[in-house]
C-alpha cells in the first residue's frame, strides 16, 4: 500500500496540494525546523564535548584487540541466545497455536490460559524467577527459556490469527476431500497462515532479539553485559567510558534489528506477488 504522505505533494488526507503561498509557508517552516533540529543536535554535541566525552582517552580502549574481541564475544552470545530462543519460540508457538485451535475443550482452555499468562507477564520478572529457581549457574538457559515462553505465546497468537484469517472455503474444501483435521491443518491451513504471517513472525523475532539484552540483569555475557563490564572500569584520567560504550553498543543493536526488519520486508514484498496478501498487526 503506498502511503498517502509520500505521494509527492499531490494528495494527502491532511492537506491539499500546496498553492504558491502555501509553498512559501512550507519553505519558511522547513527552514525553521531545520534550524531547530540543528540546534538540538548542536546542543547534544556541545554537552557531550564540554563534558569531555570526545576526549581520545575515553575512546582509545576500542582500539585494543582484547576489547574488540570481548565485544565480538558479546555479539556472538547475543546471537546464540537469540537463535535458540527464536527456534524454540517458533516450535512452542506452533504447539500452542495447535492447542488453541483444537477441537478438544480442555486442551483449548489449557493453551489459552498458558498464552494469556505468559503474554501478560513482564519478561524480566519471568527470567529472573527462572534464574533464581532453576538456572542460577547457567543464566543463558534462564534467558532462553524466558524468551521462549513469552515469544512462543505471542507467536502462537500470530499463527492462530493467520489461520483464522484464511477463507473458510479452504478448510471446507479439504474436509470435503476427506482429509482429517490434522491433515487439514498441516497441509492446508498452516502453510498458508505461515506464509501470510511470516513478516509479523519476523517482526516478533526483532522483539526477541532486543529482549536478549535482559540477560544483562542475570549476568549472562551478552552484548549489553559486556558493555557494562567495559564501561565500569575507570580509565586513568578520563573517567568511566559509559557514553562511548552506549554510542558503540546502540548502533550494533540497531543494525542487527534493521537487518531482521529488512528480511521481513523482503519476504513481504515477495509474498505480495501472490494473491494471498495480508497486512499483519504490529508486534
Amino acid at each position, binding site marked *: *500500500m503506498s*502511503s*498517502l*504522505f509520500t505521494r509527492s*505533494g499531490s*494528495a*494527502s*488526507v*491532511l*492537506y*491539499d496540494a*500546496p498553492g504558491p503561498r502555501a509553498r512559501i509557508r*512550507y519553505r519558511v*517552516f*522547513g527552514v525553521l*525546523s*531545520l534550524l531547530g*533540529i540543528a540546534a538540538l543536535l548542536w546542543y547534544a554535541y556541545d*554537552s*557531550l564535548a564540554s*563534558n569531555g*566525552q570526545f576526549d581520545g582517552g575515553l575512546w582509545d580502549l576500542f582500539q585494543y584487540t582484547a576489547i574488540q574481541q570481548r565485544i565480538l564475544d558479546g555479539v556472538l552470545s547475543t546471537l546464540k541466545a537469540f537463535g535458540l530462543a527464536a527456534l524454540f519460540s517458533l516450535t512452542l508457538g506452533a504447539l500452542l497455536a495447535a492447542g488453541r485451535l483444537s477441537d478438544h475443550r480442555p486442551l483449548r482452555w489449557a493453551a489459552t490460559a498458558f498464552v494469556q*499468562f505468559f503474554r*501478560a*507477564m*513482564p*519478561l*524480566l*520478572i519471568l527470567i*529472573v*524467577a527462572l534464574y*533464581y*529457581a532453576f538456572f542460577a549457574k547457567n543464566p543463558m538457559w534462564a534467558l532462553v527459556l524466558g524468551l521462549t515462553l513469552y515469544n512462543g505465546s505471542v507467536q502462537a497468537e500470530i499463527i492462530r490469527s493467520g489461520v483464522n484469517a484464511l477463507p473458510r472455503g479452504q478448510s471446507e474444501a479439504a474436509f470435503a476431500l476427506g482429509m482429517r483435521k490434522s491433515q487439514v491443518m498441516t497441509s492446508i491451513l498452516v502453510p498458508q497462515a505461515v506464509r501470510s504471517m511470516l513478516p509479523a513472525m519476523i517482526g516478533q523475532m*526483532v522483539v526477541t532479539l*532486543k*529482549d*536478549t*539484552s*535482559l540477560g*544483562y*540483569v542475570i549476568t549472562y555475557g551478552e552484548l*549489553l553485559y559486556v*558493555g*557494562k563490564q567495559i*564501561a565500569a572500569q575507570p580509565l586513568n584520567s578520563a*573517567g*568511566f567510558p*559509559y*557514553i562511548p560504550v*552506549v554510542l558503540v*553498543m*546502540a548502533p550494533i*543493536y*540497531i543494525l542487527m*534489528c*534493521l537487518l531482521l*526488519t529488512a528480511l521481513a520486508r523482503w519476504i513481504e514484498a515477495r509474498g505480495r506477488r501472490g494473491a494471498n496478501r495480508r497486512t499483519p*498487526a*504490529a508486534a
Partner: protein
Amino acid sequence: MGIMFENGNFALFRDGFLQTIELSAISAVLAMLLGTLLAAFRVSPIPALRAFGTGWVTIFRNTPLTLLFFAVEFGLPALDVHFSHFTFAVLALGFYTASFVCEVLRSGINTVPLGQAEAARSLGMTFGQTLGLVVLPQAARTVLPPLSSVFIALPRNSAIAGAFSVDELYHVQQTLSEQGYSIFAIFFWVALAYLVISAAVNLLFRFLEKLTAVAR
C-alpha cells in the same frame, strides 16, 4: 503463599505496586504526548520534520529498552544531568514507547480514505474542521486496538526500571528473594499484580472501543 502477610511484606509489596502504576501512568502520558507530536511530524508537509520523526522512530524502536535505561541511567549523569532514578525511568520508558505510539497513530491516519477529507474540503471545511471533525475521529477509532497493545506492554516493560534502582514490583521481587523467601511464592504475588494491571488496561480500552463504536 502467606508470605505477603509477614514482617511488613505487604507494605513493601503495596508500595512497589503503586510505584509500578505511577511509573507506568506518567510514562504513558509522556509517550502519548511525544508520540502524537512525532506522528504530527511524520505526516507534516515539511521534509525536515518528517526526517526527524523517521529518525527518532528508527532509533528508538530498534534499541533494546534495557540499553536505553542503561544509557539514561549512566550516560546522563556523565553529562552532568542529575535526576532521580524515577525520572530517568520515565524518560527511558516514555521515549521508547513514544516511537510505538507514533507508528500506531500514523498508520491510523493512513487508514482514513482520501475521499473523506476531499469531501470535507469540498463542503468548505477549514483544515482544523477537516482534521478535528472528519479525519481524527475515524483515525482514533481504528488505532484503539493497536494502541491498547502498546499500553498493555508499557507496564510490563516498566519492570526493567526495577533493575535500575526504582522501587517497583521487580524490585520487590528482588528484595524478598534476597530475604530468602521462596521464589515461587514471590513470583505468584508479583505475577498476580501484573495480571491485574494488564486486565485493568485491557478493560479500559474495551470500554473506550465500545464508547467510540459505530454501527456500519
